[in-house]
C-alpha cells in the first residue's frame, strides 16, 4: 500500500506536478465577469439559434428601417417643396384684395378694392425693399399664325422679373419705357411659347389678343411646376397696356385701376414683419377701415410664414409616419421579450450551473440583458442598413433626394437599444432569480 502511494505521488510530481502547480496557484481575478465575456456568451447563444434570432430581430429590423427611411423621405420631400417655393423669389410678400383666409366661399378676390394708387402709395413709403410690382391679372386667348392658346395674362412692371428670379430663354423682359408708354409687347412663359410657335423662334413674332397685335419680345426659361399656377403658362405685358385693352381693369367704384395683387421683396428677412405691419397700416388708412374698426379688406401673404407653416406640416407628417413605424419597433420588442423568456426556460439548467460555479444573480441578470440588447441592437443596425438602402434607391430613382440624417440614425438605434433593455429586463430578472438547485434539477 505504502509503495502504491509513493508510486502515485511519484507519478504526480513527475507527470502532472506543473499542471497541478498551475491549477492550485492562488487566483488573482478582478472578481467580476468582463464585458467581453458577457458579449461573447451572448453572441454564442444568439448564433446557436440563428434562424430564431433573425426572426426575432425582424420586428426591430422593419421598425428601424421604416423609421429611418420615412424620416429620410419626409426630409427629402420637405426640402424639395422648400426649394421650389424659394425658386419663386426670396422674402416675398403678396398683397391681395379681400380676405383670403376665411375659408372657401368667403374669399372675396372679386372685391377689386386694391388699386394702382395703393401700389403707388406703398412705393412712396420708401420701405427697405428689393423691389415691388403690381399685378393686374386676367385671362385671354393668344392667337399666333399656327396655333392659339388660353393663357393667364399678367400686366405688371419690369421689376416683376427680378422679384421672381425670372431668367430669359430668349429676348428680354419689357423695360421701364415700354411699361410707362404701355407699348404693345408681350413676354411669353415657356409653355406658351412652345404651344404657339413649337420649336420655332418666338421672339420677333406677333400674336393677337382680342384682335390687337402684340410683339413677342422675350421668352422665359421654364420654371417647372411651382405651387402657384405655373409661370410657364403666363403671358406678361406692361400693366398700362392691359389696363387700356381690358374692360375689367377698374375697381368696384369704377374710379381707379384695380390690381389683382402686389408682390414685393423685402431686402432683409428680419424686416419682413415690420414691412408687413407698415403696409397693413397704410392700406387700412387708405381704405378708411380704422374709422369704423372693421376687418382688413386685403390680405398680406408672407412667403416666409407660408414656408414655415408648410415645414411645420411636413414635419408633423414625418413625425406621425415615424411614430407609426415606431410601433413596429415596440412589437419587435415584445417578440424579443417572448424569445428571451423561452431562452430562460430552455437554459434553466445552464443558469443553475453558472450559479453553482460562482455566478452571482447580477451576472446572470446582466448576461440575459446583454443578450436582449444584442438582439435589438443587431436588429437596429440591420434595419439601419435596410432603411439606408431604401432611401438610396428612392434617391437613385430621381423622385426626390432622401438623405438619412444623423438624428434619425441615432433616434432609431437609440430606440432599438431602449426597446431591448425595456423588454429584456423582465426575462433577465426571471433568470437571475432562479434558485440554483431548482435550476439544476430542472429537466
Amino acid at each position, binding site marked *: *500500500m505504502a509503495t*502504491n*502511494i509513493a*508510486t*502515485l*505521488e511519484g*507519478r*504526480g510530481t513527475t*507527470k*502532472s506536478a*506543473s*499542471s*497541478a502547480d*498551475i*491549477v*492550485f*496557484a*492562488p*487566483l*488573482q*481575478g*478582478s*472578481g*467580476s*465577469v*468582463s464585458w467581453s*465575456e458577457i458579449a461573447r456568451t451572448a453572441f*454564442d*447563444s444568439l448564433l*446557436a439559434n440563428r434562424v430564431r434570432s433573425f426572426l426575432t430581430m425582424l420586428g426591430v429590423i422593419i421598425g428601424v428601417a421604416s423609421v429611418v427611411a420615412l424620416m429620410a423621405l419626409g426630409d427629402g420631400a420637405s426640402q424639395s417643396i422648400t426649394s421650389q417655393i424659394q425658386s419663386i423669389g426670396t422674402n416675398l410678400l403678396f398683397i391681395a384684395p379681400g380676405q383670403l383666409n376665411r375659408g372657401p366661399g368667403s374669399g372675396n378676390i372679386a372685391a377689386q378694392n386694391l388699386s394702382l394708387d395703393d401700389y403707388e402709395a406703398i412705393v412712396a413709403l420708401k420701405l427697405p425693399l428689393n423691389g415691388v410690382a403690381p399685378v393686374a391679372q386676367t385671362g385671354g386667348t393668344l392667337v399666333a399664325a399656327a396655333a392659339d392658346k388660353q393663357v393667364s395674362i399678367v400686366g405688371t412692371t419690369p421689376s416683376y422679373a427680378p422679384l421672381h428670379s425670372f431668367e430669359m430663354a430668349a429676348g428680354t423682359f419689357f423695360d421701364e419705357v415700354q411699361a410707362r408708354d404701355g407699348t404693345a409687347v408681350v413676354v411669353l412663359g415657356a409653355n406658351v411659347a412652345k404651344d404657339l410657335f413649337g420649336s420655332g423662334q418666338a421672339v420677333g413674332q406677333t400674336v393677337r389678343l382680342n384682335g390687337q397685335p402684340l410683339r413677342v419680345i422675350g421668352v422665359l426659361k421654364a420654371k417647372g411646376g411651382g405651387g402657384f399656377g405655373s409661370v410657364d403658362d403666363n403671358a406678361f405685358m406692361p400693366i398700362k397696356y392691359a389696363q387700356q385693352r381690358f374692360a375689367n381693369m377698374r375697381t368696384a367704384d369704377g374710379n381707379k385701376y384695380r390690381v389683382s395683387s402686389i408682390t414685393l421683396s423685402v431686402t432683409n428677412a428680419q424686416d419682413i414683419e415690420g414691412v408687413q405691419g407698415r403696409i397693413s397700416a397704410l392700406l387700412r388708412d387708405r381704405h378708411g377701415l380704422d374709422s369704423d374698426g372693421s376687418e382688413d379688406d386685403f390680405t398680406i401673404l408672407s412667403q416666409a410664414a407660408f414656408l414655415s407653416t408648410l415645414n411645420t406640416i411636413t414635419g408633423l407628417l414625418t413625425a406621425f409616419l415615424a411614430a407609426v413605424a415606431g410601433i413596429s419597433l415596440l412589437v419587435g420588442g415584445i417578440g424579443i421579450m417572448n424569445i428571451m423568456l423561452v431562452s430562460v426556460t430552455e437554459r434553466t*439548467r*445552464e443558469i*443553475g*450551473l*453558472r*450559479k*453553482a*460555479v*460562482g*455566478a*452571482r*444573480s*447580477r*451576472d446572470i441578470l446582466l448576461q440575459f440583458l446583454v443578450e436582449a440588447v444584442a438582439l435589438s441592437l443587431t436588429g437596429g443596425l440591420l434595419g439601419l442598413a435596410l432603411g439606408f438602402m431604401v432611401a438610396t434607391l428612392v434617391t437613385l430613382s430621381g423622385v426626390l433626394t432622401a438623405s438619412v440624417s444623423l438624428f434619425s440614425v441615432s433616434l432609431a438605434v437609440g430606440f432599438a437599444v431602449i426597446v431591448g433593455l425595456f423588454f429584456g429586463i423582465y426575462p433577465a430578472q426571471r433568470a437571475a432569480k432562479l*434558485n*440554483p*438547485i431548482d435550476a*439544476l434539477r430542472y429537466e
Partner: protein
Amino acid sequence: MASAVNRWHDAIGYPLQTISENFMITVTDLKKTYHMGDIEVNALNGVSFEIKKGEFVAIMGPSGSGKSTLMNLIGCLDTPTSGTYVLDGDMVSQLDDVELAAARAAKLGFIFQQYNLLPRQTALRNVELPLIYRGISGAERHRRAAAALEIVGMKERTDHKPNELSGGQQQRVAIARALSGSPSVILADEPTGALDTKTSAEIMDILQRLNREQGLTVVLVTHEYDVAAYAGRVLTMRDGELVGDEKQTPRMTTQVVTMAGVAGK
C-alpha cells in the same frame, strides 16, 4: 476570516478554542424542511458532524434519505431552515446570496451525476467557466483550464464538445471544471451514477489522487459500496438523520497506471 470566526463564535456561543483550524466543514443541528402545499417534508432532521481538511468522505443512504439536500447545503446552493454551517471558518448559514455565490466560487467545486457541461462549448471553455466568474483574464484562464484538463487526463480533448466525448470523458471534464477555480473542497453528488464500473473506478481514482496529492477535501454522495470504498470515512443517512459515521481504510486503486496511460493518449 477572523471576523467571520468571531461571528460564528458569537452566534452559537461556543468557546473559541473548539473551532479547530483543522475543520473544513462543521455542521450543527442542520435542519431543512420543504413545503409541498400543506405537506411538510423534513428532508434533514438535525444533522451534526465535522469534516477535517483533507478528508475523503462518502455519504451513503437510501434514496430520499436527504443526501442531496445535505450536499446542497454544504455546497452553499441552499440555506438551512435551522442549524449552523461553518465552511473553512466562515459562518455560511448567515451569508446572503452574493456572499454565498462568492463562497461557492472561492472554496467549492461541484461534480454532478449528469455532468452538466454546457453543450455548445468546448471542454476547455467549460473548464474556464468558474474562472470567468472570478474575472480571470484570457491567457491566465486558458493556462489554468488547460492544466486542469491535463490533471484529469483530458489534455488531448480540449477542443471537443461534450457530445463528442464519452460519459467518462465528460465527467473528467466536469472534474477539471470543479478544479479550475482552485477550490478547497470537491463536492460530488453521485458522480459515478451514470457510469459503468470501469469508468467509475477511473473517476474515483482521479478524486482519490486529488485528495491525496493536493490535500483537497472530497465529499461524495453515492449508494454504491464499491465507490464508497475509496473514501476514508463513510457517513450514513436515513430519513434525514445521520445514522452512521465510520472510518475505514480506503481502497487504493490499481488502475493508476491505466489512468496515466489514458492521460498520455
